[in-house]
């Protein structure tokens, strides 16, 4: 009951408190950068997932994205949930920090001689931890988004080519978030305009293309599919569902059989092992979450 009233008060006071303004504006900044789209769009799935699981999934996405040569698909639902949670937590912390002042006043009034400083610390401690906790989440989100933006820049021409290619299974809007897509389109338009105005205009027409893949050297930079990466073989996500790709060796060890195309060589990836592998060899397994990049 009390908490409800606090919430309402905090809502009313939001615009008048200086501290709150910085917090809210910060929140808005974050959302514009991360692009939280349609809060509450994932309400249906929201009930079944726990914040802890989501955070673990986000950590895996972050680590895979940082280490993989290509741009991985954007986890739309997960990111929407995470951004909504950041917003909610920001508001929750604001409410507590205001309600907390109130509690202090009560304690002083009560002044039952009970160790006032002790309860003071006990009141501050959760707040301290919750702020640290929120900062940690924001760090991962920021780092993840920045890493993706770096890749969008790097593969700008390649992504344009993908967009034109109609036979692809995943549309570009599945690979990128709405904001990333907009950024990509505008950035590459500006870049092409610059190239055109400064150099290409002055070249003979047959040398003006920037995406000519016919010659001996391809002009569109593709992700380096066969680059080596460190992988950890995690195995199927839950031990109960049988995984058809998983094989069991004579000594009871589970492994995945993969084929290195260039060398025509078969390798067994034992569950729990760490390997250095070509990215394209394990790409399928990474997409399915059975192998993680480390």
């Amino acid at each position, binding site marked *: 009951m009390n908490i409800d009233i606090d919430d309402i008060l905090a809502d009313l006071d939001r615009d008048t408190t200086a501290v709150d303004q910085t917090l809210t504006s910060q929140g808005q900044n974050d959302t514009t950068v991360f692009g939280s789209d349609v809060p509450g769009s994932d309400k249906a799935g929201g009930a079944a997932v726990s914040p802890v699981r989501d955070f673990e999934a986000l950590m895996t996405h972050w680590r895979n994205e*940082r*280490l993989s040569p290509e741009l991985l698909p954007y986890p739309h639902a997960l990111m929407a949930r995470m951004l909504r949670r950041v917003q909610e937590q920001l508001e929750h912390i604001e409410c507590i920090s205001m309600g907390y002042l109130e509690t202090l006043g009560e304690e002083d009034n009560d002044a039952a001689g009970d160790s006032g400083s002790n309860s003071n610390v006990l009141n501050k401690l*959760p707040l*301290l931890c919750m702020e640290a*906790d929120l900062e940690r*989440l924001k760090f991962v989100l920021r780092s993840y988004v920045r890493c993706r*933006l770096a890749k969008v*820049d790097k593969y700008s021409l390649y992504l344009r080519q993908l967009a034109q290619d109609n036979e692809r299974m995943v549309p570009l809007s599945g690979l990128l978030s709405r904001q990333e897509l907009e950024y990509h389109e505008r950035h590459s338009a500006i870049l092409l305009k610059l190239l055109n105005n400064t150099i290409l205009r002055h070249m003979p027409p047959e040398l003006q293309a920037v995406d000519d893949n016919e010659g001996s050297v391809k002009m569109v930079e593709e992700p380096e599919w066969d680059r*080596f990466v460190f992988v950890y073989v995690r195995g199927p996500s839950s031990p109960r569902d049988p995984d058809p790709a998983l094989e069991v060796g004579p000594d009871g060890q589970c492994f995945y059989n993969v084929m290195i195309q260039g060398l025509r060589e078969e390798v067994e990836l034992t569950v729990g092992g760490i*390997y250095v592998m070509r990215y394209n060899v394990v790409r399928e397994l990474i997409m399915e979450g059975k192998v993680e990049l480390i």
Partner: protein
Amino acid sequence: MSLPWNIQETFSPEEIQFIVENEPIKIFPRFTTRVSLRGDRAKPAHTRWKLVTADDHPLNNLVAIQTTEVALWMALLLKQQGKCSIVAPGWLRLSQLQKYIDYELKHAERFSELPWNWLVVAQLLFSKAADDLHDPVHLLRGKIQDLREIRLGKIGQGLKHLNESHLQLDNLSLLEINELRPFVLGVMNKLKQVHSSISEERGSEDYYE
């Protein structure tokens, strides 16, 4: 650039520490947050915990001197505030570390099964919770350093096995992988290029014959 070039395709040591700090560790809290059932006041005397990256249930049910598992970063934060003591993990004691060292010395070809985050955890606990460890910290530090040097030596030996196909490196910790990464990947990528150019050449020779 949106991501600095030096952390593209790898992690910084600080980020490795960040990853490891999410791992659980046991603590002895020195305060209680579990709300007593008497409930004579409408409002609890302290703020409730609500977290977005970790499970907040154990933190709302802390009972003084009863072990609880929380994330490492939380444990270190509480420790810093003098609100808990950390239960050092079982492998972080002299006798256990000596066993690992013996294993490393006996088996030249493989690594002992230390936890994947041993270096970082040891480093953090030495600097922030030295008084909670089972043994004097300077002795433990010595053992950890020994282990690290033995393993580094093995890694150095293993580098001559680098090839263009693949490599298996079980039981290597995250920090060790991270420091190995630029060199190993660089060499293996180059070997792969050399190999593919050789096989192309052979292919074209066959063609001409």
